[in-house]
């Protein structure tokens, strides 16, 4: 009956008698301090306002894989748009209101014979305008180094086992290009409208570590 004995300390215990979990907020890193210092200086000198900083963060957070999914669904339903997207990804996504900024977009299409997958071995280049912020694993050393070394094994760990007659094309975003995979349109989706099709296009299917969802799955 441990609670009968009061000769040990209950300090650091929750009211229910369990130890508190340690907080995860360690000291600020060098670069976190640098960010705060630069941001405060910019505000103090009137270059930007706190509202502008908050609005920019909000705009960045508002970009989600739904943007990319809309582009893919358009490509599935509109052959002329698909051709424009594969020819010039930046111009085609701009048509839909998704500006890629100074970077250029290349769309690569999965077919019966080819499966594409995107990685950035040098850092974490990612088509943020179309997919939002990259998932943590995309930035991990394991994903970045292994995807160019043993791509099929990496894909298999994502649950994607590709037959031997499908060629895997890895795209390493080393410079000014950003990439989006146009996954294959699933069977059984004939007659679906663009908006419904977009719900089948997952983030991972546009990175290439997955495929589009089947209808009703």
């Amino acid at each position, binding site marked *: 009956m441990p609670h009968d004995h009061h000769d040990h300390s209950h300090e650091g215990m929750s009211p229910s008698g369990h130890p508190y979990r340690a907080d995860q907020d360690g000291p600020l890193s060098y670069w976190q301090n640098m960010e705060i210092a630069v941001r405060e200086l910019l505000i103090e000198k009137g270059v930007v306002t706190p509202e502008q900083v908050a609005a920019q963060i909000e705009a960045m957070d508002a970009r989600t894989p739904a943007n990319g999914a809309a582009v893919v669904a358009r490509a599935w339903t509109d052959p002329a748009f698909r051709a424009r997207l594969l020819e010039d990804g930046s111009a085609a996504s701009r048509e839909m209101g998704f500006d890629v900024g100074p970077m250029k977009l*290349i769309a690569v299409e999965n077919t019966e014979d080819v499966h594409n997958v995107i990685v950035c071995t040098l850092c974490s280049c990612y088509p943020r305008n179309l997919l939002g912020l990259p998932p943590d694993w995309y930035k991990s050393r394991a994903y970045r180094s292994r995807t160019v070394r043993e*791509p099929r094994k990496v894909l298999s760990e994502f649950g994607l086992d590709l037959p031997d007659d499908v060629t895997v094309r890895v795209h*390493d975003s080393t410079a000014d290009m950003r990439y989006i995979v146009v996954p294959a349109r699933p069977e059984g989706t004939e007659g679906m409208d663009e908006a419904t099709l977009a719900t089948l296009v997952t983030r991972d299917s546009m990175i290439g570590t997955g495929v589009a969802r089947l209808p009703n799955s």
Partner: protein
Amino acid sequence: MQADADFAPGARVRVRALMPPGHIRTPAYLRGHVGEVERVLGPFGNPEKLAYMLPADKQRLYRVRFRLADLWPDADAPTDTIDAEIYAHWLEPA
């Protein structure tokens, strides 16, 4: 490094096996390896200068396709490929 070379799609190119210091966008695992130009892009400002806010020369950018087997002798699927963007001044005819 020598001046900008001009390669057409399909050209065989070798990535220069150099190890200069600085902000380099040519991955080390591709240096010294031979691939094929997939398409020609750019020109873009040389990131090795831009990173230090120096006046940047414009460089053609090539998407070069490498066979997995040419990079890794023990590759499990030799005909799988890796495409990467390499600036002109990092390429020589192969």
